[in-house]
């Protein structure tokens, strides 16, 4: 299982290294759809990767998805592939055969990246899933990520279905949270690498700035946050594989909180170390940090997910806190 995952992640990393260069990212922000990249992603079968084999997909799980989404984040992939994968998975979960091509994922209140390119839209409110073919899109643009961000004009759904209980009442939000957390974790890996490189080459006072303890301490802190985000995301993916999206609500929420916090801290540190050059349009750093900031808000900011965790814990009370934390991946004692 994990061999297949590693192989796929490597494939995606390679594809994006070739096809998601800064020029493509910038062009995408200016409204040019990265057709070649999308076509290759389709050729690899990625959009339907989470759909069961019987419905034309590859049958991967949420843990695999999280690893792939993290790879998308590492390259700030300028296509909504993660959303399309999640949308297809939810449709398939409700027994609706997902159409080919880009499927947009509808989240409450959110504009949809590249909605205008999507032939279809999946919605999954209240334990149902619905497939739409929007009649039109109100076009917009993300303030921070700068990508096209559109809102659908809906007609009647093409198909509707009930999701199995394991998906819970807000499956789309949970999948979206896992996606955004994973992308943040991936982008953080990249900006940390970029910044270590920069610190080792940029010289001031006759030595690389990476030799200064103040800089080292910042980057060490950043590395701790990057590691935490990655572990939180992997843990959420594993939990969703084991217990379904709804059963993994705690882990997904924790991943969104930790990745969001790590994103804030990490972006702050890498900009501080890059200083003025990193504040320029020319430098590629912001191609990643702006997305980190945007993804923090995608599928609910840290505040929302933290409250969910906190409300549940407060309701259960102190006597259950530790037992609840440790029992999640363990069979109860006989």
């Amino acid at each position, binding site marked *: 299982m994990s061999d297949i995952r590693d192989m796929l992640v490597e494939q995606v990393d390679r594809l994006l290294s070739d096809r998601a260069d800064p020029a493509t990212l910038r062009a995408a922000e200016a409204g040019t759809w990265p057709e070649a990249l999308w076509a290759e992603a389709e050729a690899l079968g990625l959009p339907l990767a989470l759909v069961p084999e019987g419905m034309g997909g590859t049958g991967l799980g949420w843990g695999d998805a999280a690893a792939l989404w993290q790879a998308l984040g590492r390259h700030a992939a300028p296509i909504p592939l993660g959303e399309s994968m999640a949308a297809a998975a939810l449709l398939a979960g409700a027994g609706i055969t997902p159409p080919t091509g880009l499927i947009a994922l509808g989240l409450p209140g959110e504009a949809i990246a590249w909605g205008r390119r999507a032939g279809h839209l999946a919605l999954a409110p209240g334990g149902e899933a619905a497939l739409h073919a929007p009649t039109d899109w109100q076009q917009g643009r993300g303030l921070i990520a700068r990508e096209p961000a559109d809102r659908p004009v809906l007609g009647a759904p093409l198909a509707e279905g009930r999701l199995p209980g394991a998906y819970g009442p807000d499956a789309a939000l949970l999948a979206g949270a896992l996606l955004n957390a994973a992308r943040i974790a991936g982008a953080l890996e990249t900006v*940390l690498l970029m910044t270590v490189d920069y610190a080792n080459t940029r010289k001031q006072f006759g030595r690389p700035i990476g030799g200064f303890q103040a800089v080292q*301490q910042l980057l060490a802190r950043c590395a701790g946050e990057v*590691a935490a985000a990655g572990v939180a995301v992997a843990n959420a993916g594993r939990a969703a594989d084991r217990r379904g999206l709804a059963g993994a609500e705690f882990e997904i929420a924790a991943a969104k909180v*930790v990745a969001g916090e790590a994103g804030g801290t990490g972006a702050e540190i890498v900009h501080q170390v890059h200083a003025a050059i990193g504040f320029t349009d020319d430098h590629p750093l912001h191609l990643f940090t702006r997305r980190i900031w945007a993804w923090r808000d995608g599928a609910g900011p840290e505040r929302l997910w933290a409250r969910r965790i906190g409300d549940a814990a407060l309701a259960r009370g*102190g006597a259950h806190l*530790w037992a609840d934390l440790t029992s999640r991946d363990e069979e109860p004692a006989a």
Partner: protein
Amino acid sequence: MPSLQFPLRDTPAEAPALRAELRAFLAETGRDWPPMVPAYSWMGFDRDFSREVGKRGWIGMTWPKAYGGGERTALERYVVLEEMLAVGAPVGAHWIGDRQSGPLILRLGTEEQRREFLPRIIRGEMAFAIGLSEPDSGSDLASLRTKAEKVPGGWKVNGRKVWTSSAHRCDFMIALLRTAPAPDPKAKHQGLSQFLVDLRSSGLTIRPILDLVGQDGFNEITFDDVFVPDAMLVGQEGNGWEQATAELAFERAGPERYLSSLPLLTEALNDLRAEPAAPEAVGRLLARAATLRQMSLSVAGMLQEGHTPAREAALVKDAGNDFEQALPETIRGLVDPARTPPQVLEMLGLMTMVARSYSLRGGTREILRGIIARQLGLR
């Protein structure tokens, strides 16, 4: 950059049964612990408690049966540690022996040393102290000067150790001593050796030092011509630095590096229900706790496989210290003193003070981040 990896681990199949046993034991034993106990937890000291823990086979769990050990897995041991820490049990009388002194003796000690010390540690009868820091050697540990000179049949030790936790209550100490002068100031890591020092040796004076809470937690130890027999050298003469740094992987790797203040969250939780800011703040803490737990488990898994994850342990300790230090401050920001039981306020007050030690003991935050930075490739 050779980035640090933290592959996920599952707790072992035995975990639920083990937890049930521990929880029953701790609920019974800990019924009347005052807030001071969880506030100090593994810096606390309770021989009766440690003997009871030893009776149940929860010390030296992974060691060979030949010495009285349990030959259980490192991850089973991990479950025991986290259950103890989650309630802040006073584990100090066996913690150091179980965590580092015993494993060191097992790895590098002579057969006589193993037979002499391990069974007693396992029974919870022999408490160990850590003899590293000196008045002029803290973070720059290798600069230490307490020296052991060769004499017939053994070594003559002179100098001073300081901050030695619970030494006045312990039996033995593993001391890092200078057995040969450093060939030059850059090679100060050479010429160090580790010894088992009987804390009741003549010429050895232990002076308790009160900490800022007012507790006699740590000590100054003066060596005045203290004789240490040859048989008490651990490992190889002159190899002390390598040995001690490998020991640090054990010292830094455990769940005690993120769980120190968790009992406060448990204790305070029900009284935060009326506070509108509590759900978000508590949620953030729990998101971190769950993530740190996975990171910590991952490091335990590496130890189980025989690796020495020194850098991974440094990263998890640093991240864990941030969390366990932030926790009391977060709780303080949420409690209404007028409506909070005195028990909770007392634990909060104590932990507010004790928390300062988290990012000092076992290597300061700055030193840990220096290790991580070097791992990142920064020079």
